[in-house]
């Protein structure tokens, strides 16, 4: 159960200043605390204290709770800062020794407080509901607060529901990282403010109160006791959906050598199609009807070596695409239960019944002090020939392959070569970095692909790459032209943070 105090700015603006008159962009939790203290000490809930008023015990308790429990989150609307550098001229009734007539009611110019325009409400939220007496005191104190900041920004304050846009980060460092650094009241704040108020309210001795030849207003000193900075950060957006939702993992006895993986995958593919039988779904066969737009990813068949997680050894992995319908998936899941043996030229191999693992929880977490990068296993093959007009490297080809796997994440205009270039650039914009893409030479390169146009030059490569914010650290995926049949699988390659930081810059 959460608890929130919501402030509705009645004029759609907020005006306040910090330091020696600098614009305050939003009311900090400390300002809320001060406003509540002011309401408690001057509103209808205050109790007599000699000639004056003071907060009642219930309100003091509520303020102490606020000091001990900074808001866990805050809600900040969109704001727009208004013009700056205005001077406000006011008659302050002071004697100023300038000009001919010192007793004239002189207009005195001071920096005016500009403000911010808002699109909504501020809120301070707590994940835990306060004790009932505190909650009662706060909900009765809130309507007593007339304004936040200067008296020109009236608010309506209430205990209500609110979703935080920013959350308190207890481990933040002031000089590093992003977020809103706001002052928060800590223990002793209310007492310090009350003491300062009492000191200011004492009438000065007559001698000190006499007029002078030149007078100035002296604002009371800013009380900084019991203030701390808290960083409120916007929660990171969740990574986009994984290209493949889950993995069917079949344990195997022997590993499949890298150069035979495509051939084995084709055999598995054939076996699966025949197990499903007539009407095998297109996401498995890869044969789409006339005019149908094929999805970004189909069922992918991959082989994992002895390092494969979850089954503790060699495995055959069938990756189920996100875009498949429930009917197709059910057909495939039913058929694969019957997969026991696959015939290949080199002799048949056996597989054990599969386990199903969510794709975003496939790999183990990266080790402490490292950042997760990925290595193509065994090799990846570019999805297209190099586009014409300008430079095109293997790294660009790899970035394009990544963009084609997460195609729904990118909206780029153009067609053909221009579109390919735009997709590669867009992937780089999401933090995709390709390090050391190396072409694989020699031997029969055709064994790394299944079917290609006879005119195409096959350029398999090994690469180490970072996927930016496209996916989490544990997701299984494959890239490149042969991603559905035994090529371009991305396996973790954890780099020390120091090195990774250099590479991502």
């Amino acid at each position, binding site marked *: 159960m959460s608890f929130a105090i919501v402030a509705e700015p009645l004029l759609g603006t907020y005006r306040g200043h910090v330091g020696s008159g*600098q614009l305050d962009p939003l009311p900090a939790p400390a300002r809320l605390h001060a406003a509540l203290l002011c309401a408690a000490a001057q509103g209808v809930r205050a109790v007599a204290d000699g000639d004056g008023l003071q907060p009642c015990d219930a309100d003091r308790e509520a303020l102490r709770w606020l000091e001990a429990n900074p808001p866990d989150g805050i809600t900040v609307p969109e704001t727009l800062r208004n013009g700056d550098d205005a001077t406000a001229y006011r008659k302050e009734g002071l004697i100023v020794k300038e000009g001919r007539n010192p007793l004239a009611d002189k207009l005195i110019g001071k920096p005016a407080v500009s403000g911010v325009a808002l699109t909504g409400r501020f809120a301070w939220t707590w994940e835990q509901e306060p004790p009932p007496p505190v909650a009662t005191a706060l909900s009765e104190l809130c309507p007593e607060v007339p304004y936040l900041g200067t008296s020109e920004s009236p608010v309506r304050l209430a205990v209500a529901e609110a979703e935080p846009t920013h959350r308190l980060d207890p481990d933040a460092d*002031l000089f590093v990282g992003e977020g809103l650094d706001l002052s928060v009241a800590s223990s002793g704040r209310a007492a310090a403010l009350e003491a300062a108020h009492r000191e200011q309210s004492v009438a000065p001795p007559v001698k000190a109160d006499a007029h002078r030849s030149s007078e100035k207003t002296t604002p009371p000193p800013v009380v900084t006791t019991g203030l*701390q900075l808290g960083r409120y950060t916007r929660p990171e957006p969740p990574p986009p959906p994984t290209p493949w939702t889950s993995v069917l993992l079949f344990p195997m006895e022997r590993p499949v050598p890298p150069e035979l993986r495509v051939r084995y995958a084709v055999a598995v593919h054939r076996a699966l199609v025949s197990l499903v039988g007539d009407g095998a779904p297109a996401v498995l066969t890869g044969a789409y009807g006339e005019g149908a737009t094929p999805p970004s990813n189909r069922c992918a068949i991959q082989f994992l070596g002895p390092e494969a997680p979850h089954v503790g050894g060699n495995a055959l992995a069938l990756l189920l695409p996100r875009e498949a319908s429930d009917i197709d998936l059910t057909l495939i899941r039913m058929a694969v239960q019957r997969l026991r043996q696959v015939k290949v030229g080199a002799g048949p191999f056996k597989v054990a019944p599969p386990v199903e693992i969510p794709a975003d929880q496939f790999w183990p977490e990266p080790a402490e002090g490292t950042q997760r990068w990925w290595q193509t296993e065994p090799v990846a093959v570019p999805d297209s020939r190099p586009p014409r007009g300008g430079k095109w490297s293997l790294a660009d080809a790899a970035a394009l392959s990544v963009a084609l796997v997460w195609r729904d994440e990118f909206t780029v205009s153009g067609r053909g070569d221009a579109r390919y270039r735009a997709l590669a650039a867009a992937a780089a914009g999401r933090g995709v970095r390709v390090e050391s893409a190396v072409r694989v030479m020699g031997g029969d390169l055709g064994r790394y692909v299944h079917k290609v146009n006879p005119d195409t030059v096959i350029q398999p490569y090994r690469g180490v790459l970072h996927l930016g914010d496209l996916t989490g650290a544990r997701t299984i995926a494959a890239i490149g032209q042969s991603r559905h049949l035994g090529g371009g699988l991305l396996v973790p390659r954890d780099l020390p943070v120091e090195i990774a930081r250099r590479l991502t810059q």
Partner: protein
Amino acid sequence: MTDFVLASAAPDVMLSHLALYGLAAIVEDGGLDDVRLSWTGGMSPRPVLSAPQATPERIGEIVRRHAAGGDDPDNWPSRQISDREKRALMSPRISVIAEREGWQELQDRRHEVLDRLTGARALLDLRLIAALGEPSYWRLNKQGQRLQDDGAHRMEMQPRNQGSEFVGNRLRPLAAAVAARTAGEVADGLLGRRVRDEVGKDKPDSRTPTGLAAPGPTDNALAWCALWGISQFPIAARTSGFATATGHIGRGTAGYYYVPVWAGRWRTARHRTILASKQLAEYAATGLTPKELGRSAEHSVEAPVAAARQWLADRQVISVVRFPVHRFGSASAPERRAMLGELLKVGPR
């Protein structure tokens, strides 16, 4: 390594940064070996001076001795412009000198002080005097009036009302106040255990911070160190305008001050090289319009900012604090002040 934390020095106040720089300069000059500067972590970082012998007693004694030297009637802060004119000879901004002979005499007397300090190898004193600048006899406006203040450092913010000046009205009283303390009291003030403002009489509108912070009671030992921190920001005099001051960008007496914040422990020499770097100045201008910088609109600053950021990041600078300078009070003798600092983070985004 012993850490000496300036616990009352908040990072969004210019005075805190200068106090660290000045304290380091003073204790190094006073013979403390292997001095390093750093900042603590968390959301309330504080400046730290570390050295194998950075004990409160040792540091308190060095600072006290340094202030006593400044209070010495034979030393340069006590020198007057002439026998008739009480104002301090080494102040960068003094009352107007009209005649040629006056300038000649001022120059002769200044050179005599500089020669003596050079002979005594008083490098820190020379560094502060060089950074503060001097009355500019070489600057005239189109009407032939002398622009005497254009050779002064921007961080010297003593208002000029009623003929007050920096050395006589700020340095001298502070030197006397700090010299009158015990070593322990000096250290207590620096460590933030007790704040005593002898010069400002602990008044709520005490001007002891001299524009480096909002008016208010400021520990005199801390203020003394902060004013000596100006020595780390050299200036370059120019015939065609204000002297260019390290740590200041923007137009004239307004504009912005900037200082770096770094990870790890730096020696003062390394710190000085970063402080004076072009890259730091370029990065400090991030997000400011050409108008705010006092440049013409053609000067685009977009491209160098990225390069400057990389350069700073490679040198472990994690943030740059930028302080807008505002003017208060009368137009004839405005009071300038560095406002609360804004953090420009350097780290990867």
